[in-house]
């Protein structure tokens, strides 16, 4: 009996999230990256396609804080523009995959029996298809643009989400509160989406924060094959792929993009961890 008054789930969650230092740090870093990405056209020091062929590859200097690549393009500028694509692809593809995966997994797990068997075999089959083959088909069929890119990535990523959610739902549906809700005549969609899904959000949020960087790397891979983002646009994935080629002589080309990708991964992870705890009403920091 901690409070006489009920707090809304969100007010309560926000209070608890703000008490978690690692999560606040993650939130600040993620926020800063998003702001920088949004303000890129105004804050980037150079135009994204501006080259300085005379300069060539230069290590970090005062004029080029992160150095330049072999065409003399400012790395900081390219990373800022790249972050726009990487973050959007990462977040939207993750969102797509979560929506499909949660719905599919929850329905499969709750219905159980034959439905579950059929639905999960379909997931197994899709799992066994080479992911790249699948994305290529989607991209070729629906055309190469950035929207299709994250839809295609999301369509591949949902498989694991579906498995996680299904596993959780299988144990959750044995709980008394589900039995009680059934006994009160709550309909099947009501039970799946109102009672079960909120209960699996904890592991799902953590998994989502891991999916974002994974999707960013997949986007890099697709771009490398010429299926993703096309030059002169770029993304962190492309920068890393290029950086790897030159890492022996021009190490800054891999160090900066690599560092920021890792930073994003860590902050999302801390944030996800904090969110999981904050959104669990049973968890009490006080």
């Amino acid at each position: 009996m901690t409070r006489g008054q009920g707090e809304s789930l969100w007010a309560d969650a926000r209070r608890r999230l703000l008490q978690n230092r690692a999560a606040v740090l993650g939130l600040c870093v993620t926020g800063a990256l998003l702001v920088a990405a949004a303000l890129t056209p105004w804050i980037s020091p150079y135009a994204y396609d501006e080259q300085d062929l005379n300069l060539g590859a230069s290590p970090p200097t005062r004029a080029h804080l992160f150095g330049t690549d072999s065409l003399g393009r400012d790395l900081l500028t390219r990373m800022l523009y790249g972050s726009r694509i990487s973050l959007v692809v990462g977040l939207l593809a993750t969102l797509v995959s979560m929506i499909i995966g949660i719905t599919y997994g929850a329905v499969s797990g709750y219905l159980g029996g034959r439905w579950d068997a059929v639905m999960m075999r379909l997931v197994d089959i899709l799992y066994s298809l080479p992911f790249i083959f699948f994305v290529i088909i989607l991209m070729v069929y629906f055309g190469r643009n950035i929207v299709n890119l994250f839809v295609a990535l999301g369509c591949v990523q949902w498989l694991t989400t579906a498995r996680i959610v299904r596993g959780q739902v299988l144990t959750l549906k044995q709980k008394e509160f589900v039995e009680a809700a059934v006994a009160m005549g709550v309909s099947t969609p009501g039970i799946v989406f109102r009672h079960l899904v909120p209960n699996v959000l904890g592991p799902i949020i953590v998994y989502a924060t891991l999916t974002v960087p994974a999707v960013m790397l997949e986007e890099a891979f697709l771009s490398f094959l010429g299926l993703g983002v096309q030059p002169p646009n770029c993304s962190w994935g492309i920068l890393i792929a290029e950086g790897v080629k030159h890492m022996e002589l021009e190490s800054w080309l891999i160090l900066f993009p690599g560092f920021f990708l890792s930073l994003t991964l860590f902050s999302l992870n801390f944030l996800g961890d904090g969110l999981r705890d904050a959104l669990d009403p049973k968890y009490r920091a006080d």
Partner: protein
Amino acid sequence: MEKTEEKLLDIQDLRVHFHTRHGVVKAVDGVSFGLERGEVLGIVGESGSGKSVTCLSVLGLLPAPPARIESGRALLAGRDLLTLDAESLRRVRGKSISMIFQEPMTSLNPYLKIGVQLVETLRAHEAIAAEAARARAIRMLDRVGIADAGIRMDGYPHELSGGMRQRVMIAMALLTQPDILIADEPTTALDVTIQAQILELIRELKAEFGMAVILISHAMGVVAEMSDRILVMYAGRVVEQGNPGEIFRHPAHPYTKALIDSMPNPNASADRLPAIAGTPPDLARLPAGCAFAPRCGFARPVCRETDPDERTRPASETPALGAPEALTRPGSPTRSAEPGHAFRCHVDI
């Protein structure tokens, strides 16, 4: 058959078997009983005697497989619940028949506000606007004794104690004003003072709303105090039924007698409570004859050979062969003072 119309719920020869790898578990094996409007029916028995399975199967809440309803009918106002499709059954659950469970701590969804869960139940059965549903939920919470009901609506279950949560569960069950409330061990998980309060609450609400109650418990005392009629179940069968006074004064089945003897009695000076020797039988491998015979102090050779039919007292006169309606008919030629007192035992104890 012609008399069944007047009963609110009429369960006839219900058999529920679980088909497991270890064989067929006969959890409920030929149970028949009726429930009148406004009546409190107590069902007592040890764990695994089939009390809960009987009620869960009526509401279609058993996982199938492994559970299978082998035979029987459960007539609610003339409709057989056992043959209803899923959607019709959903409309019965929580509307005509509500159920509350043993574990109030885990019967509410920890992620949903109490109000959301109450309103959801109501709106699952009635076309009612959200605000009206909320107002009714608050009134009902107030009625079951939750202080500051309006504020509690926006709270989460973990903010409430076990007794309060059971009150919330009761409020939820009664929101739709059901004809029947099934209370499956509603007080087992609560401490003793709270138990009495909850039972008192159920009694009051029963009088107020005029519903029938099926009270399932393993505590003979609880059932005796609350019920108009008692069913004693053992190994998936009703071994004795009658009104509480009669059953307490003259238990006719050795199992009932053992249950009564094992109740704590503050006046007795015994150091130890008498316990029923042995454990309930494996329902997949029931012995021939009476299922209670291996644990029974009165057992005779016949008990191990043939399963006794239901009869009334005394044994010499008119054993009513498996026809429960005949037993409730007044004026049966028996010396028993109580019509409706029936049992399954070869021995007169």
